[in-house]
């Protein structure tokens, strides 16, 4: 998570340079990921990378500044365990953590949930992680990526039901 901060530094600097870019109308957007070699030793001190040339959308979009202080999560939603279909779990999703305190309350009139959080209904899907990262960078959002878990399903075989085991019987099948 300390990286998030480092990134935030970079993002802020790129924000301040954003306007300059606007004036000179050089607009370079890059979605390339970190090029730092990952094999450096721990404990080593490195300076944050130089800001990259991303014109952050909120320089001109007029999005509220508070939005910048809310890191987004980029992840692949897992399959709903209630169903066997794995649809939609290929996509990468960006969503916002809830706003603590005042983000939601029960409306006294109808008992429905009201919200002061304009991002609570926003949930974006992307075809790849890079797309999602690129989008978050363009918006100037801090983000972190939740790695997807590796699925390990052993090869399955109907014949296993009838496998002979010389040792003591350990299961009584009631099927």
């Amino acid at each position, binding site marked *: 998570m300390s990286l998030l*901060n480092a990134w*935030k530094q970079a993002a802020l600097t790129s924000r301040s340079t954003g306007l300059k870019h606007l004036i000179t109308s050089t607009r370079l957007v890059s979605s390339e990921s970190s090029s730092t070699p990952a094999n*450096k030793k721990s404990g080593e001190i490195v300076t944050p990378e130089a800001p990259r040339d991303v014109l952050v959308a909120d320089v001109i979009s007029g999005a509220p500044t508070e939005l910048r202080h809310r890191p987004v999560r980029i992840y692949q939603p897992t399959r709903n365990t209630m169903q066997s279909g794995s649809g939609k779990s290929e996509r990468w999703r960006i969503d916002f953590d*809830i706003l603590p305190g005042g983000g939601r309350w029960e409306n006294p009139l109808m008992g429905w949930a009201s919200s002061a959080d304009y991002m609570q209904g926003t949930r974006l899907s992307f075809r790849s992680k890079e797309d999602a990262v690129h989008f978050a960078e363009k918006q100037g959002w801090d983000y*972190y*990526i939740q790695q997807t878990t590796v699925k390990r399903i052993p090869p399955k075989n109907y014949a*296993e039901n009838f496998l002979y085991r010389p040792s003591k019987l350990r299961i009584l099948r*009631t099927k």
Partner: protein
Amino acid sequence: MLRLVSTASRPSSAGRLGKTAVPPKGRRAFASTSAKHADISLTVDGKEVTVPQGSALIQACEAAGATIPRFCYHDRLAIAGNCRMCLVEVERSPKPVASCAMPAMPGSKVWTNTPLVHEAREGVMEFLLANHPLDCPICDQGGECDLQDQSMRYGSDRSRFHEITGKRAVEDKNLGPLVKTSMNRCIQCTRCVRFANEVAGVEDLGTTGRGNDMQIGMYVEKTMNSELSGNVVDLCPVGALTSKPYAFHARPWELKNTESIDVTDAVGSNIRVDSRGVRVMRVQPRTNDDVNEEWISDKARYAYDGLTFQRLTAPLIKQGDRFVAATWEEALSAIADGLAKTGAQGDEIQAIAGHLADTESLVALKDLINCLGSDNLATDQLGGTAPPVHGVDVRSNYLFNPTIPGIEQADAILLVGTNPRHEAAVLNSRIRKSWLHTTLEVGFIGERVDTAYGYDYLGQDIKAVQEFVAGKGEFAAKFKAAKKPLIIIGSAISEHPDGASVYNQLASYVQTHKNKLLTPEWNGFSVLQRAASRSAAYDIGFVSSAKAAKTTPKFIYLLNADEVDPKSISKDAFVVYQGHHGDLGAQLADVCLPGAAYTEKSTTWVNTEGRAQLGSAAVPPPGASRDDWKIIRALSEVLNVQLPYEDVLALRDRMWEISPTLVRYDAVESTSPDVALAGLKVLVESTKKAAFKGLPFEKPIKNFYMTDPISRASVTMAQCTRAFTGDQESGISDEKGLQAAFA
């Protein structure tokens, strides 16, 4: 303004801020241990795929990206092959074949989307629907029902079957307070039966009758007594088994899902919290093969209703013998006054970390207490005020070193003073899985319990440990012969008066047998924690020094601590309780500060393996409650020892400084054998002179359904206690009271 950033946690993958995934080092996955077969290739829908030999055809089709509809096949259960929905066409086969029951053959040509396949599946669907009630509008499965979805594709608009007697009617079964049955809807896929057989170890859920008369049930009037029973609700592809507490509460499309981490035990099961508005409506498991596969315990799944009862919603200050609601300012200054009035200095200031304290707040609290000049940090357990016997200097002394998936490689397990079935239900199912499929031998020392697998009972106290270490007995011989032996020490052992000598015996056993128990691939010495916060507390060194443990505290800060012994708190001490429930800890307090529960904060949890995982907030905390670390941060300002972090990211930087493993999410960092050996050496040295009394080891969890303030406040868990533990004193007086609590 430069920041110190180490590249140690720099992700190697594409993301700049990714969580680093450290590959499980030198360890082979379960899938690859089962006899390395050659790969075979076949053609599915004209696409060439290669799968390991021995795979089912349905797995090959999936690998080729073809979706096969199914009801009975499930990745984590044995193959049954009785729904026939997965029919595909195979070249040179006269009839369509059930792809789940058919092994993938090299060179075969398979089609999954031909008119023949469609017709076959439509036929199957028509049979299934012939007896299926048309009650989707009132069925809880509606919206996430496999039958509903697949009938959109393979169902026809009318049936050719018209029973004169009407549709088949089956009596509903009573499976207890968690699983609601509506047996008319059952399509006899037998997933629930296979789950109970294989995973849960409840071998009395089964089928009776044949053909149209086949029924699922417990044979006799009996409830399904398993701590994993809730999972059959997920498995059931139709609405025959649904969740009783959730019945008619919400529809799946109304729910907002938040992926988070469970805290009811130390496994750190991955969960998905489904919420609507400001309420948690249900908790579902999330698949993660490294932790909980696809299962969660009933407590994790159903204790959520406790989140709405007994909550602390405003800061409270004790006046006389009652609590008065106050503002945050008043409460915080009352604490500052209280601290000044007691005159607590140095080690007289004590903090106790409870089971549900998150890592962020633990770090903040430790920093705060240290800033106040005290070293008196305790964990909320028996003898938690003293430094723990295993020490906290080396991680492998108190963690579950072989990792949870690693259990499947063990070929002999010794359980000491633990009942994993109740302390870590999902982990227990791994042991059972391995016990069923391999020749795993389990030895057991402690109070006799039903573990869902057979074990050699060695004894109930330190004597059994000594005999085992001396190599006496049949199991000790088996253990010695094992290739990957595993010793699991329960968390209750360190609370036991004989704990030190148990650790001493077992640690020296590991030392002498280090060629098997401590190799670069295998660390067979493990401690099974049972509290979600404990590993994190040890990781950050939330333990007292020997000197501090001897002082009588005058100011006590209870962070989510609800197991404390009221007698251990002296009358004139000033007690602050921070937590989310008005449970035991709050009763003792002079000031209560309302915190957030695990569904309401995005915090780090470290599970028993030492795996840090990030939970996320699904709903806002009620009333005036706040994120726990923010409360401590605010308090630090009032006490004039301002903590240096302003936001959670800065706090996580601080955590990174303490131990990078705390923020390296989803990864387990294994301890190298040399360091682990050094740790054991220290452990043996420090416990050398330990005396023992020979008292029997008792199981720490008497009632699985009520172990923390959330589950104690939960009506569902109270019902379970009543139904499964036969405890009539479960907090609900009678049926009427129960109704009232529901309304």
